């Protein structure tokens, strides 16, 4: 029961973030390290998430591990009324590590209490998706050379976007971050996060317009603005084009600036941005494989 887990981004210390960054760089430089030889990893996807699953399975394959598991509970025993408790109890007798995605919030923490082997949360509802945050950190350190002194712009749905909340929490461990929030009032950054930053004496600025203020940015972190988030569709119509990043807006941005997005995008980044060298979201997705290799190696003490 004392297995090391990764359930919430707050489970890791600053030292552990840095260790994951180092390990990820090591795997990127030398991806064929068969540290999982003879080990079995279970990927339990109670709801489909193709990108996250492929990224984990690539990481496991590159480490030489075997994969068991399922995706979407409709094809598994779970629909026959088996509890999460029983599924985890059974699988933790088969596997050396469990990667789990589940639609209910808190399911991953619960699974880690039931399991005999480490559990990695690959998303529990709208709650946590810590491996996304670690790959975001890795993308920042790779492109900026450091996690200190970063001017980070977060754009889009800052109210419900769990990736921006987790990234904010993680970045607050480092020196002198500046946060700039760009969102429509309906999707503004929740108060609790602003209070948290204030309590740590950290600077943040709020904007509703997406203008040349981004010329200050080191990182622009884009998220989807979803129509369903607006109680009145008229409000959505008003904002839908305001928060689209276009290539012409990048003209005077800093040379080191990079654009991140957790993907998939809908239309918040115009495709004319893709060929700009500052577009980094597809590289960011590749970084996810190295970061997940690092997380697995760290939790299983393989490195």
């Amino acid at each position: 029961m004392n297995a090391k887990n990764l359930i919430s981004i707050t489970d890791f210390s600053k030292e552990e973030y840095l260790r994951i960054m180092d390990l990820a760089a090591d795997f990127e430089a030398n991806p064929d390290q068969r540290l999982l030889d003879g080990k079995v990893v279970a990927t339990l996807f109670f709801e489909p998430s193709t990108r996250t699953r492929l990224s984990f399975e690539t990481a496991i394959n590159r480490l030489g591990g075997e994969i068991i598991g399922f995706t979407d509970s409709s094809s598994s025993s779970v629909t026959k009324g088996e509890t999460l408790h029983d599924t985890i109890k059974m699988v933790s007798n088969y596997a050396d590590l469990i990667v789990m995605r589940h639609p209910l919030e808190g399911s991953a923490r619960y699974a880690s209490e039931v399991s005999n082997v480490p559990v990695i949360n690959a998303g529990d509802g709208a709650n946590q998706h810590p491996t996304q945050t670690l790959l975001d950190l890795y993308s920042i350190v790779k492109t900026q050379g450091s996690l200190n002194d970063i001017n980070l712009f977060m754009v889009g749905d800052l109210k419900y976007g769990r990736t921006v909340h987790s990234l904010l929490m993680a970045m607050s461990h480092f020196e002198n971050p500046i946060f700039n929030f760009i969102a429509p009032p309906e999707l503004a950054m929740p108060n609790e996060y602003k209070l948290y930053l204030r309590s740590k004496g950290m600077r943040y600025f709020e904007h509703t317009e997406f203008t040349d203020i981004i010329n200050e940015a080191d990182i622009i972190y884009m998220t989807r603005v979803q129509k369903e988030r607006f109680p009145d569709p008229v409000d959505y119509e008003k904002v839908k084009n305001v928060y689209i990043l276009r290539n012409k807006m990048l003209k005077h941005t800093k040379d080191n600036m990079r654009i991140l997005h957790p993907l998939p995008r809908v239309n918040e980044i115009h495709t004319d941005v893709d060929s700009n060298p500052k577009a980094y979201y597809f590289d960011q997705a590749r970084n996810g494989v190295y970061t997940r290799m690092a997380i697995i190696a760290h939790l299983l003490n393989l490195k």
Partner: protein
Amino acid sequence: MKKQLNVSAIKQGTVIDHIPSTALFKVISILKLDHCKDMVTFGNNLDSKVMDGKAIIKVENRFFKDKEINKIALVAPHAKLNTIKDYEVVGKYVVEIPDEIQDIARCFNPKCITNHENIDTYFEVISKSPVALKCRYCEKITHQDQMEIK
């Protein structure tokens, strides 16, 4: 005028006073007095100067630990305890909201695993007045006005 006793006196044990009438049976269930072998007497809807209707519970031969009794703080925040020996009050105690609440309140988040599977809830108390509870599982905060007792 002679004061009338609504609930008989006990020789030794604990008297829990100032329980809101609406919370009486919750207190009984939280302290598991419904499975208790000792004599338990209670009165409900008693007159009170300070409450809208109060309840009182007397448990013969039982002395509660602070930790045990604080479990009722969420439903009976003003409860007072008197410990009795030889018909005399020998100790007084006021309940206090503990730092952690196990399996008493429900998480307000309908998407929380604790509302879908038969598991104990655990909350960290992040504010005592007004009460705010952080769920160990979904990490959401249940505020006093959203609180429901299991």
